[in-house]
């Protein structure tokens, strides 16, 4: 999909100039403790460096489908997308177009949650916006409310096959779902599937981490590099940040 750069950016984000610190990455996590719970001590977020993202690469979108059992029905009006690749360009063509993945922004002020009549959509304590599929009635108010087109209704039955991920439910017909920051992996101290795939592809365009931890790679980068969020003018405070837009 190609979109106008100013449309995607809205009025743009805050510019902070500074030094880039070398990212320290030690992600071999010890097995998680027996009992864990979401807590407001964390604030999960993502940072995507569009300079490192390649317009031909679909590693993240493929990984998301594989990890979360998100099928493709082959009908553009009905297909489920938790993460999409966008091409955006400058209206005056002063800059080359850029390619970036777009998923749920896990907004701090999520209109999707505000309009949900059943409280199926809610913000977890650590900032992840989730859909409780057991409560969702498929009314699709949230799809209208989300300005990022992050949500999809599952129009058709889906089924499990030998390639499905047994750890994750298959998508249920009649409920609205979206990127959940791979909450099952994050709760186990792992990184979301798209981030892992991007790294395995050698691109390292996506980082995921805790904004409440000032030492985390993502906090350091957001403090020190110019980053933006999409349509910051809407005031939803997205937590997917972009570098190089």
């Amino acid at each position, binding site marked *: 999909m190609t979109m106008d750069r100013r449309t995607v950016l809205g009025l743009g984000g805050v510019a902070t100039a500074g030094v880039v610190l070398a990212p320290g990455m030690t992600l071999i996590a010890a097995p*998680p403790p027996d*009992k864990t719970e979401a807590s407001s001590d964390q604030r999960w977020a993502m940072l995507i460096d569009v300079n490192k993202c390649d317009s031909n690469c679909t590693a993240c979108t493929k990984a998301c489908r594989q990890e979360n059992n998100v099928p493709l029905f082959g009908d553009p009006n009905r297909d489920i997308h938790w993460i999409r690749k966008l091409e955006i360009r400058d209206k005056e063509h002063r800059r080359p177009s850029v390619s970036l993945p777009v998923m749920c922004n896990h907004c701090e002020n999520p209109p999707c949650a505000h309009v949900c009549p059943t409280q199926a959509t809610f913000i977890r304590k*650590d900032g992840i916006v989730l859909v*409780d599929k*057991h409560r969702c009635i498929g009314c699709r108010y949230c799809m209208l409310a989300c300005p990022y087109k992050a949500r999809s209704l599952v129009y058709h039955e889906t089924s499990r096959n030998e390639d499905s991920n047994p750890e994750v*439910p298959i*998508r249920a017909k009649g409920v609205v779902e979206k990127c959940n920051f791979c909450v099952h992996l994050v709760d186990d101290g792992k990184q979301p599937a798209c981030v892992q795939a991007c790294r395995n592809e050698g691109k390292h365009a996506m980082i995921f981490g805790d904004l409440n931890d000032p030492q985390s790679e993502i906090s350091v980068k957001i403090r020190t590099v110019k980053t933006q969020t999409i349509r910051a003018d809407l005031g939803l405070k997205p937590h997917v940040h972009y570098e190089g837009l």
Partner: protein
Amino acid sequence: MRSLQSHPLKFTVLLALVWAFVLVLPTMVVASGSGADVTQHSKSAYTGGPPQLENAKGEACIRPSDWMRRNHMDFLKHRRAQTVREGLRIRSESLIKCAECHQSREKFCDQCHNYVGVAPDCFECHSYPK
């Protein structure tokens, strides 16, 4: 005159009642006496016989078995809500742990669920851990 006329009427009614009783009684005996018939009838709905639970591996359940028998549905549903909404994950009490002892859903969960005719739809989306 009046009594002569009303007497046969009363007698007829009484006779009818007696006959009705005589006719109905054997039917009642058949209905209550032959349990086989009743089972035969309900067999079209359920074919598995009384629940035959496979012996669980493992030493003991995470809760006393009789408590579990009565409360597992509320327990699971409460945990489900806590897990989805509060991110509570207790790894020693997850469904993966259930499946370590009760390895076959068909030979465990489904046995009673089919017998009592309840159809929880958990496993239409989730897969029972292997």
